């Protein structure tokens, strides 16, 4: 199955999927919090564009609704909420120094290779080419996990979590033409509620330890250990 044998829409889907992967790497390399949120919004927008393209090319009108939902939630509402939150806890000029920037990026590339190796044996798919996009969406999921592991800043970890959801959604849309609408609505609201809850948690955590650094969450009791 070579790329040239596919119609133009699916080639465009591939290009967009590759760009989603690229935004995952950008998130991994980005040190500025606000720029991270913007990158996350772009990732949501790209996933929405892929969904719309799939709806158009496979003539599945219900996917347009998913695309609109993704665009509204992942590209606009949640980034806006995160943005407002970051401004409220006065982290909008926050830059994080990465411990091992080059090693993290190379590790990310390793994860991409790993996920490709994992999906290689998959045979039964509606479209042979979609297997390659499954590799991409699995990489996006793993890169989101890597982001959560590599960062200390809680807002960054939430972005990692949300980008995992982006990866899962990408896989669902491209392999199975989306999930049933009820499931999709449920997941969308879960994500939204999660975003709201995270916001409440941020404020609580900040109030109790006066920082949003996850490395400082290593004590179980609020009292200082007795020396």
């Amino acid at each position: 199955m070579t790329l040239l044998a596919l119609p133009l829409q699916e080639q465009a889907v591939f290009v967009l999927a590759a760009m989603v992967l690229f935004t995952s790497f950008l998130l991994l390399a980005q040190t500025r919090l606000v720029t991270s949120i913007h990158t996350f919004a772009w990732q949501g927008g790209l996933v929405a564009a892929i969904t719309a393209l799939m709806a158009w090319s496979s003539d599945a009108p219900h996917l347009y609704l998913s695309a609109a939902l993704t665009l509204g939630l992942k590209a606009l509402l949640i980034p806006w909420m995160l943005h407002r939150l970051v401004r409220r806890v006065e982290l909008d000029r926050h830059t994080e120094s990465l411990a091992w920037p080059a090693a993290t990026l190379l590790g990310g590339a390793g994860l991409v290779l790993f996920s490709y190796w994992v999906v290689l044996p998959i045979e039964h798919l509606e479209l042979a080419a979609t297997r390659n996009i499954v590799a991409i969406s699995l990489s996006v999921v793993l890169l989101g996990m890597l982001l959560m592991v590599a960062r200390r800043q809680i807002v960054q970890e939430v972005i990692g979590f949300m980008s995992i959801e982006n990866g899962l959604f990408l896989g669902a849309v491209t392999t199975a033409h989306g999930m049933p609408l009820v499931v999709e609505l449920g997941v969308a609201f879960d994500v939204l509620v999660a975003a709201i809850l995270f916001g409440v948690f941020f404020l609580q955590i900040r109030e109790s330890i006066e920082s949003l650094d996850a490395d400082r969450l290593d004590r179980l009791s609020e009292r200082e250990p007795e020396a």
Partner: protein
Amino acid sequence: MNTGLLVLFQFLFFALAAPLLAGWVKRVKARLQNRRGTPLLQGYRELWKLMGKQALVPDTASPVYRIAPYVVFASTLLAAATLPVLGPRLPLASMADIIVLVGLLALGRFFLALAGMDVGTAFGGLGSSREMLISSLAEPAILMAVFTLTLTAHSTNLASVTDFLLHSAPALRPSFLFALMALLLVGIAETGRIPVDNPATHLELTMVHEAMILEYSGRHLALMEWAAQIKLLLYAVLLVNLFFPWGMDAQGTPTGTLVALTAVTFKLAVVGTALGVTESVLAKMRLFKVPLYLDMAFLLALLGLLSHVILEVGSR
């Protein structure tokens, strides 16, 4: 066009159009700053003036210092002449290999760095060490990026790659997108343009290329600056002809050649304008941020290679 003429054209094109492209970029930047700017032909006048001046050589200089400008200029021009400008029918096609091209550029850079250290001034050594830092990180990235192209075209020969691109059906290739972005980042770093180095300053904290050629004067300086301009043109031609091979001439008919020449001039003007605009918008970054920038380029190239393997070949 017969082959001898074409060889001559290749060398003359790169030697003569290089100051024009540099002048064009300067002009775009001047217009964006609401200045009139220097005339487009100023680059030629400066080279001419420098050629006529006495070349001073410091007492401490060894022969390396004297031969370096010639080696740098010759290797850069030779590297440039292997690039297909008008079409894949290239007399130097047998040596127009991408690895040879990178090697020739590395030879020039090696002598440039040697010349910087030869006189023994502080600035020269500083510039050389910075240049080596940048190029040691940029070289793997550029090789990865071009390998992405060569995997698609099944050849490392630039002429056959161009030939393949001209004759294959148009397709949206994610790997090309990444390779293009990687080559853009690397090209900016290698030619010493703004986020990495500023060609218009002699500020000791920031200069890289200028620090190495600080001691040069007269015809030596002219050759060094000319070589830098040719390198800029080389990267511009590499980018436009590999990624946007529209209008290139496959047969070598007179009309085809004329069309190809117009097309390449237009594309280079667009690249020059884009370069001028980005240089006006961006600020130069700290030297210690450059490795991260080049890591990004390397990552893009790697992603290009991966997306070629994962998305385009599909291994069935």
